């Protein structure tokens, strides 16, 4: 009874506050609104779990998850090291760099580009995580097989995006470079690669989540007894859901932090690009 009351009151108050906040313009309000929404969601989750005594094997309360997170820090740290530091980051780096270099190499021949682009697009759309069992067979149970899955998954988006980015310069800009007597390499380094950067950053941002997914799913196919994917599947099987949620929170935080870092890096590197210039409309 009292739970229902608390729930209704907080939902009503939260919605009223959200309506008030969202009616206002400005950066601060644009950030505060989703934050309040998230907080409201967490609060309602907590109230429901505790008030209605939802069994923790079904849905642990947010405080329970936070508690599990705090008490399992060493284990979470070990899983993070195994999955993110050992598997995701090398796989991500290998996949992105090789995709980037392959695109630059293939870009010189229009014939090869026209052949490779549709095929790479097609392969990139395939359920690539499925190669996980093969990689486990080739590279063993430990992190190399996970890094390999992450590398293959990140290769295609980077390849396709870099090719698109290299084609993004206009004929006028290329003609200008030619009138300067610029060589292929000079045009590439001074015009085409910088112009391709927005596309490359798109792929970098998309790829991090892909690499994380690849490594975690590959751990479902066999792993040493450490790693985020391993922990998620084994703890779920024994119904330690608070630990599972803590791992998921860790994965979510890792994903969003890296995404945020890439956005910041993009802003720092691409400050000159039109899409990052504040547009000031002319007034009469």
């Amino acid at each position: 009874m009292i739970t229902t009351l608390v729930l209704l009151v907080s939902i009503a108050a939260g919605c009223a506050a959200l309506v008030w906040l969202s009616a206002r313009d400005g950066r601060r309000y644009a950030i505060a609104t989703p934050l309040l929404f998230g907080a409201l969601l967490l609060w309602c989750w907590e109230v429901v779990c505790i008030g209605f005594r939802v069994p923790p094997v079904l849905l642990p309360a947010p405080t329970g998850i936070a508690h599990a997170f705090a008490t399992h820090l060493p284990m979470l740290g070990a899983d993070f090291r195994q999955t993110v530091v050992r598997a995701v980051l090398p796989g991500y780096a290998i996949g992105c760099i090789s995709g980037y270099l392959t695109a630059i190499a293939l870009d010189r021949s229009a014939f090869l580009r026209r052949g490779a682009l549709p095929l790479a697009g097609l392969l990139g759309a395939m359920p690539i995580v499925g190669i996980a069992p093969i990689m486990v067979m080739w590279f063993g149970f430990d992190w190399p097989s996970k890094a390999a899955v992450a590398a293959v998954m990140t290769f295609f988006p980077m390849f396709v995006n870099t090719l698109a980015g290299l084609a993004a310069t206009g004929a006028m800009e290329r003609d200008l470079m030619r009138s300067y007597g610029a060589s292929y390499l000079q045009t590439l380094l001074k015009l085409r690669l910088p112009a391709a950067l927005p596309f490359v950053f798109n792929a970098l941002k998309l790829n991090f989540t892909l690499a994380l997914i690849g490594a975690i799913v590959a751990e479902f196919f066999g792993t040493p007894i450490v790693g985020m994917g391993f922990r998620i599947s084994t703890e779920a099987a024994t119904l330690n859901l608070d630990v599972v949620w803590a791992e998921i929170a860790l994965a979510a935080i890792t994903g969003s932090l890296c995404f945020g870092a890439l956005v910041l890096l993009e802003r720092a590197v691409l400050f000159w690009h039109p899409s990052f210039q504040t547009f000031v409309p002319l007034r009469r």
Partner: protein
Amino acid sequence: MPDAVRRAAPIVTVLLALGVVWYGAAFALNHSAALAVVGSAAPLPVVVRAAWSLGRPLLPAPHQIVLTLIAGVFGESVTSPRSLVYHAAVTAETAAVGFLLALVLGVALAVAIVQTRVLDRSLMPWVIASQTIPVLAIAPMVVVVLGNIGLTGILPKALIAGWLSFFPITTAMVTGLRAPDRIAVDLLRTYDASRRDVFVKLRWPAAMGFLFAGVKVAATLALVGAIVAELPTGAQAGLGARLLAGSYYGQTLQIWAALAMASLLTLLAVGAAETAQRVLVARRGGRL
């Protein structure tokens, strides 16, 4: 005709090059296993042929995968658990249920977000932020928890597939519903059109191109979700179960055939989306 040739020639060339590399790699990787079969004194052609026809190769040659695929598709009765059609149908069913759920909910949510400012301000940032989260990681938990409260079978798997394909549909639809220019909205307003009219006559039609782009991504993701959802349950049927079983028993050919089948399914799904798009374009007189 020359135009088609000019377009196909580079693709065929790259495919041929890939084939040559693949056969070479298959020989290199299976070399020692082949030597164990035919003996180290055997002449090279015999070793090569053995390397390309092992029962459990490290890397099967392309023709072996195709043959296994054909045997799995046509060689077995459709209801047999050895038939790839059977497993593909299980996975496709899961993916389709999840995808339809995601389509309905995603489009509805997008409409709600575009129509109400509160949702746009509070929910939309979370929809975008959720793209950075490895959603597939929750698959084992969803399956176990729902199994715990008595929900087994297709529903938990379909929920994961749907959850995955939900976000591209929602974001594409929101972008699409916002795509009309200010000037077009203003024009409708000078006609004294209501909000509803603007929505039905301008926003909805304008969103379709974006929706189909999102649908193609979502269809692929639904299949990935369905396949991964089959892993933690130790499911008996489905392409994911096939991958897992192949991985347990070292049946590489079975893994590759299941992968090829999954790729064919993806092609089929994307092709279906493209056909639907083409039908819509045709009905609209050639424009999207």
